[in-house]
C-alpha cells in the first residue's frame, strides 16, 4: 500500500516538475504569457461554458425575435421570406379575431381571458395567502405541519394536478365536486365538459390558479411577517389594540414592499398562464363544443408555433413581444413604486 502511495507521489512530482520546467523555459524565452494567463483570460475560461449556452439559447433568441418580427411570410423550413414589414406583424396579431376583440358577442378573446385571470385570481390568492400567513404566524403547535402542507403544490407538476382538477369537476359520473354539492342538495353542475358556460369553466381555471399559486405566496409572506420587529406588536398589545387593527396597521404596512413585489411577480405569472388551461381543457383550450375560447396570450403564441404555416413564426414573435411589453411596463411600475417606498 505504502509502495503504491510512494509511486503515485513520485509520479505526481515528476509531472509537476516537468510542467514547472516547461513554465521556466517559456518564461525564460519571453513566452510567459502562454502559462501565466492574465486575469481576464481566466474569467473568460470560467464564464465560457455558461456564456456560450446563454449566447445561443438566450441572447441570440432575443435579437432574433426582433428580426423575425419584421419578416413577411417567413418560412422556417427553408428560411425564405417574401418581404419586410415594420409593424405589419403587430397589426396582424392585434387585429386578429379573438386576440383583443371577440369575433362575436358569444365569444371571448385571449386578452379578455388573460385579464380575467389576472384580475380575479391574483387578488384573491394574495388575500388568502396573506390571511393564511398571518394565521400561521400566530400559532405554535402544528405550525411546521401546516407549512409543509401549504407548500406541497409548489413542487407538483402543473399538468398532473390540472388533470386531477378536470377529473374532480366532471359532471356526468365520478365527479367529486358534484357529489359534494349533492350532499347539500345542489343539482349537478356542468363545469368543464360539453355544455359548460364560460364562467363555470373560468371558475375552475381560476380555482386551480389560486390553488397552485398559494404555496409560493404563503411562504414569502410568512418569511417577511416573521421578520417584523416584535416591538411593534408588544407596543400594540400594551395599548390593547384589537387584532384586526394590528393586522391592517402594523402587519400589512410593514410587509407592503414584499406584498407589492409579489403582486407584480404574480401578475406577470398570471399573464403567462398556459399549463393550467392545457391541462384542464386539452389542446383545444376550451370545453368540447363551446362557442367561446379559454385560450390565454401564451396559448395563442404556442398555437402559432405548433402550426408551421409560413409567416406564423413572425406572428408568434410579434405576440410574444406584445407580452414582453406588458411585462416590461409592469416591472417599470414596480421599480418606480419600489423606489418611493411609500408604505406607511
Amino acid at each position, binding site marked *: 500500500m505504502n509502495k503504491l502511495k510512494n509511486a503515485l507521489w513520485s509520479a505526481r512530482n515528476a509531472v509537476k516538475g516537468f510542467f514547472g520546467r516547461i513554465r521556466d523555459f517559456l518564461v525564460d524565452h519571453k513566452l510567459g504569457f502562454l502559462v501565466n494567463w492574465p*486575469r481576464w483570460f*481566466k*474569467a473568460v475560461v*470560467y*464564464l465560457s*461554458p*455558461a*456564456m456560450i*449556452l*446563454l449566447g445561443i*439559447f*438566450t441572447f441570440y*433568441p*432575443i435579437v*432574433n*425575435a426582433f428580426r*423575425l418580427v419584421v419578416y413577411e411570410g417567413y418560412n*422556417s*423550413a427553408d428560411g425564405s421570406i417574401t418581404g419586410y414589414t415594420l409593424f405589419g406583424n403587430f397589426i396582424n396579431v392585434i387585429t386578429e379575431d379573438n386576440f383583443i376583440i371577440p369575433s362575436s358577442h358569444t365569444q371571448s378573446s385571449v386578452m379578455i381571458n388573460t385579464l380575467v385571470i389576472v384580475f380575479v385570481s391574483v387578488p384573491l390568492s394574495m388575500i*388568502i395567502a396573506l*390571511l*393564511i400567513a398571518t*394565521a*400561521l404566524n400566530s*400559532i405554535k403547535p402544528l405550525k411546521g405541519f401546516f407549512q*409543509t*402542507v401549504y*407548500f*406541497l403544490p*409548489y*413542487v*407538483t*407538476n*402543473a*399538468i*398532473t*394536478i390540472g*388533470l*386531477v382538477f378536470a*377529473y*374532480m369537476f366532471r359532471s*356526468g*359520473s*365520478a365527479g*367529486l365536486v358534484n*357529489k359534494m354539492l349533492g350532499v347539500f342538495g345542489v343539482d349537478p353542475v356542468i363545469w368543464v365538459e360539453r355544455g359548460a358556460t364560460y364562467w363555470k369553466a373560468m371558475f375552475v381555471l381560476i380555482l386551480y390558479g389560486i390553488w397552485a399559486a*398559494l404555496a409560493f405566496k404563503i411562504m414569502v409572506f410568512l418569511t417577511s411577517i416573521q421578520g417584523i420587529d416584535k416591538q411593534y406588536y408588544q407596543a400594540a398589545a400594551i395599548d390593547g389594540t384589537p387584532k384586526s387593527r394590528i393586522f391592517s396597521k402594523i402587519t400589512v404596512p410593514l410587509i407592503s414592499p414584499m406584498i407589492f413585489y409579489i403582486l407584480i*411577480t404574480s401578475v406577470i405569472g398570471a399573464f*403567462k398562464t398556459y399549463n393550467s388551461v*392545457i*391541462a384542464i381543457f*386539452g389542446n383545444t383550450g376550451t370545453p368540447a363544443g363551446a362557442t367561446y375560447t379559454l385560450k390565454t396570450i*401564451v396559448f395563442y403564441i404556442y398555437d402559432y*408555433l*405548433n402550426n408551421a404555416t409560413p409567416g406564423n413564426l413572425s406572428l*408568434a414573435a410579434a405576440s*410574444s413581444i406584445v*407580452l*414582453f411589453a406588458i411585462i416590461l411596463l409592469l*416591472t417599470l411600475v414596480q421599480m418606480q413604486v419600489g423606489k418611493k417606498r411609500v408604505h406607511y
Partner: protein
Amino acid sequence: MKNQLFAKTNRLEWITVGIDLLFVILYIVGFLYFFGIVELPMLNDTTIDLANLDQNYVYQTFLGELESPQLNGIISLLVIFMTVSVPLLVIHFKKVKNIIIYEVSPGFAATKFFYGVINLLSLNPFSAALRFYNTFVALQLAKGYGFKGFLKSIGPWLKKVTAKKVQEEDNEDDEDTLLLKKNIRRQTAVHATRMTLTYFFLIVMAVFIIIPFYWMIVTSLKDFYDSTVNPNPSIFIGLQDMQWVNYKAVLQELNFGVYIKNTLIVAFFSTIGTIITTIFASYAFAKLEFKGRETIFSIMIMTMMIPGELYIITNFITVSKNGFGWIGGGAVTDTYFLAMIVPFMTSISYIFFLRQNFKQIPESLYKAARVDGCSDFKYLTRVMIPIASPTIFTITILNVIGSWNAFIWPRLITAVGGTEGQNYWLISVALRDANFNLPGGDRIMYNLQIAASALVTVPLILVFFTFRKYIMNGIGRSGTKG
C-alpha cells in the same frame, strides 16, 4: 458518565438506523416482488383487457396461494411502510450524524419513543425495541434516571397536575380581585375562540390543498367502473380493493416506464450541466475581477424579465433542421435528447442565486489562499464548493424537479417527427398527449390517467418530504420562482 451515556445512545441509534435501512430494503424488495407478479388480464394473446383490469387471479407466492385482494392488501401495506420509513430513515440518518450532547432532552427521548411506535406499526420490532430501550438511555442522560426512575416520577407528576386544580378554589376575594378574575376569564375565552377559529381556517385551507392529492391517490387505485362510470364514486378505498394493477398497466402497456426513463436521462444530464456551468460562472462573477463584470451581470439579470416564449420561438428554429439539425431530420439523425438537454444546461437565476452565496464567503479567505499559492481552480473546488454545498444541493434538487416537470419545450420538440418523436416524450407530455381512451371507444379510462398522474406526483412528494428544508430555504432565500 454523561459522555459514556451519550456514546451509548449514539451507538444504539446507529444500530437502529442500520436495521431501519435493512427493513427499508426488505420493503422495497417485497414490493418489487409482489408488484412484479401482478398479472395483467389478457383479451387474447397480444392485447391487454384494459377495461377489466380488476380480475381475480390466484398467485403462487412464497407465502402460499394468494388471491388478488390479498395480494393487493399486501402491496398496499408495503407501499404505506415505504412511504413512511424512507423519509424517516433519511431524517434519522441526518440526525444521528449531526447530533451533539446538548440536544438530548426529555423531549428528544419522547420523540424516540414515538418513532419506536411507528417502527412497531410498520412491522419492524427490532428497531422498535432498540428505540424503546434507547428512549430510557436518553432519559437517563437528560434527567438522570432510567426506566425505574421514570415509573416513579409518574406518581408525583400526576399529583402535581391534580394539585393545581385544588389550589384554584381559593377563599373569598374582594370585589377588585373578582373583577380582575372575570376579565382574565373573558380574555382567555376570547383567546380560545380566536385560536379555534384560526385553526379551523387553517384546517379548511389545508383540506382545500390536500383534496386533489387525496383524490388522485384514491382514483388511481380504483377500477374502471368506479373511476369512470359510477355516478356515485366511493370516497374511501379499502386496502384490499386497491388495484395496483393500474400502475402496472400504465408502466408497461402505456409506456410510462419509457417516458420516466427519458425524463430521468434529461433531468440527470441537464442538472449536471447546469451545476458545472453555474458554479464556474458564479465564481467568475463573485471573485474574479475583470472589466465589464457588473455590466455583463446586469444584462443577464435583465434578461430574466423576458418571457420564455420569446426564446422558444428562435430556439425551436435553432435546434431544428436549419440550425443544429437535432430534430426534424428524419429517424436517423434525430437526437431529441440533445435538443431537450443542451438549452437547459445553464440558468441565469441559479447563477444569480449561487453568486450571492459565493459573495458571502469572506474575501480574506481568498487572499490567504492566494498567498499560500492556491490556484483559483483549487480554491474553488477545495474551499468555495464545500462552503456553498447546501446551496449547490438546493440548486440540484430544484433543477431536477424543474426537469421532471418540464412540459412546454419537450412537447414542442417531440411533436416533430410523428411517432418517432413519441418515443422521446417526457412524462408531462405523455400525461397530456398519450391516449388513455378505452380501446375501441372514446371514453377516457380515468383510473389509468390518474394513476399516471400519481406516478408523476408521488416521487416529487417523496423528494419534497425528504429534502424539505433545502427546497424551502432555497425558495425563501432566492425569492424567485424556480
